């Protein structure tokens, strides 16, 4: 059996939280945006491309979570066979995962709701496209904050050092 240090194991939890919750938010958001888009396309075939754009918007949260999870796995030694993390750094890694995980969850859900509404507005009035994109992009900021804090935690928490 492979021996894993406690810090590395905690980092693995952090990686799971990062992609798990960010992916959950992204999935819910994308599901909502896609449900609205399908309705729009059913009425107007020209909405397909715009529907895809809005359905793809909530994908970013999962990408942030995925990136952070990969970084945690690499720098904790789980991938690439490094030296492993201290227990303290492992606890920091959980904070890293929670940061992007929960931020991604809220951001993804919010973006999904905004995107679904925007699709509805655009299918009613095509001039709403640019404004719909702006409103749908707003909930992205929470995921960016979470991503930034996750990076800062990794840098100053001794994981990326």
């Amino acid at each position, binding site marked *: 059996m492979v021996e894993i240090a406690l810090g590395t194991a905690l980092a693995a*939890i952090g990686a799971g*939280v990062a992609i798990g919750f960010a992916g959950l938010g992204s999935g819910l958001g994308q599901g909502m945006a896609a449900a609205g888009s399908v*309705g*729009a396309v*059913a009425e107007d075939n020209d909405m397909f491309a715009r529907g895809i754009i809005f359905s793809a918007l909530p994908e970013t949260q999962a990408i942030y979570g995925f990136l952070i999870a990969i970084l945690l796995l690499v720098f904790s030694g789980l991938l690439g066979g490094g030296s492993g993390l201290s227990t303290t750094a492992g606890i920091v890694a959980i904070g890293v995962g929670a940061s992007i995980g929960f931020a991604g969850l809220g951001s993804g859900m919010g973006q999904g*709701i905004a995107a679904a509404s925007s699709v509805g507005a655009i299918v*009613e009035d095509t001039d709403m496209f640019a404004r719909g994109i702006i409103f749908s992009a707003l909930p992205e900021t929470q995921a960016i904050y979470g991503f930034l804090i996750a990076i800062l935690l990794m840098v100053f928490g001794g994981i990326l050092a």
Partner: protein
Amino acid sequence: MADEIATIISSLGLSNEAFLAIVLLAFVVIGAIIVIVASRPILDIYPYLQPNARVRARKGRLFDEKQISELVDANNVDDVTNYLRGSPDYAEHLDEYPLEKALDVQLGETYDMVARLAPSSVQSSFKVLAKQSDIDNIKSLLIAKEAGLDKEATEELLIPAGSLYEDISRLSDAETVTDVVAGLDGTEYAPVLEEVIPQYENTGMVLPFESALNKYYLEKLLKSTESPADENTQILYSYIGNQVDVANIKLILRAKADGLDYDAISPYMISNGYQLREWKLKDLMESQDVTGVISSLEGTKYADVLTELLPEYNETGSVAIFEKALDKFLVDSAKSASMKKPIGIGPIIGYLSQKEVEIRNLKVIARAKREADFPVSRLREMLV
């Protein structure tokens, strides 16, 4: 730091694995709580996302003020028909039916479409709304038979929409009104109509059938929404409740204008409205005249709409001004309801209401354009 944490862990008598398991468990519990709390609003929103996109797409195809204005300025009814051929919603029916019938078919299809799309929590109400086509067809059938129209002439009056169209259409060769009622046996409307056969036989008029059908429809509509479970159903209840109250007020106003008393009006009333409960309706029906009805409405939102029209009524003696104001009230309240829940029932109510207004306006325009030299200014006044 690490040593301190390790000391704390060991002082608690936990192994590294046990500590890890506790941390993991804590995350699972916290995560589950967050997911449950965060998912609740999503569960409310999710069923409306696809229906809303579909009705909003159709809402975008409704005529705007400029287009209605162009129709008002059309030279004749053929111009109106040609203009409507440019709209995909009307074009397919205009190739098959005369203008007014095509408009009715479109409205019937709209009710059916909304009833199909609506989320299950509110679907029953929209299914009742879709019965409007069947009820209109039964009324047309009864009127046709009362007037002694033959099969072909009767069929022309029927709108090919609604779940009972085939059955109703088969009755177009019935000889008499009572044959029609007998032919509807097995449908939900049979008991309603059979109950008023004695009144029909006494008066020789189909009005009791029409009133009974109206009453049945509105009562069923109100009943379908009277136990609102959430904000969406609450908004729907208010939208439908307003329609029931307005129907009651219109009936009372017209009856009072004709000098009818409580006993004559009460059989046709929906006994327990939305804002106008039984006791209030009794007050209204016992009023001496139209002015008394308006005074008795004081304290309700309907009084605000009607009171200011009293001087005009006193001049003209026509209750049509009240009816028009009440129609406008319904449109405005539907518009207000549609904005309360933009990712919920709002867009569905907004679309349905605007579609009804559009069809009503198009019918008014069509009728006006059939008459030579009908004044455009008068036509504009008649639009909702």
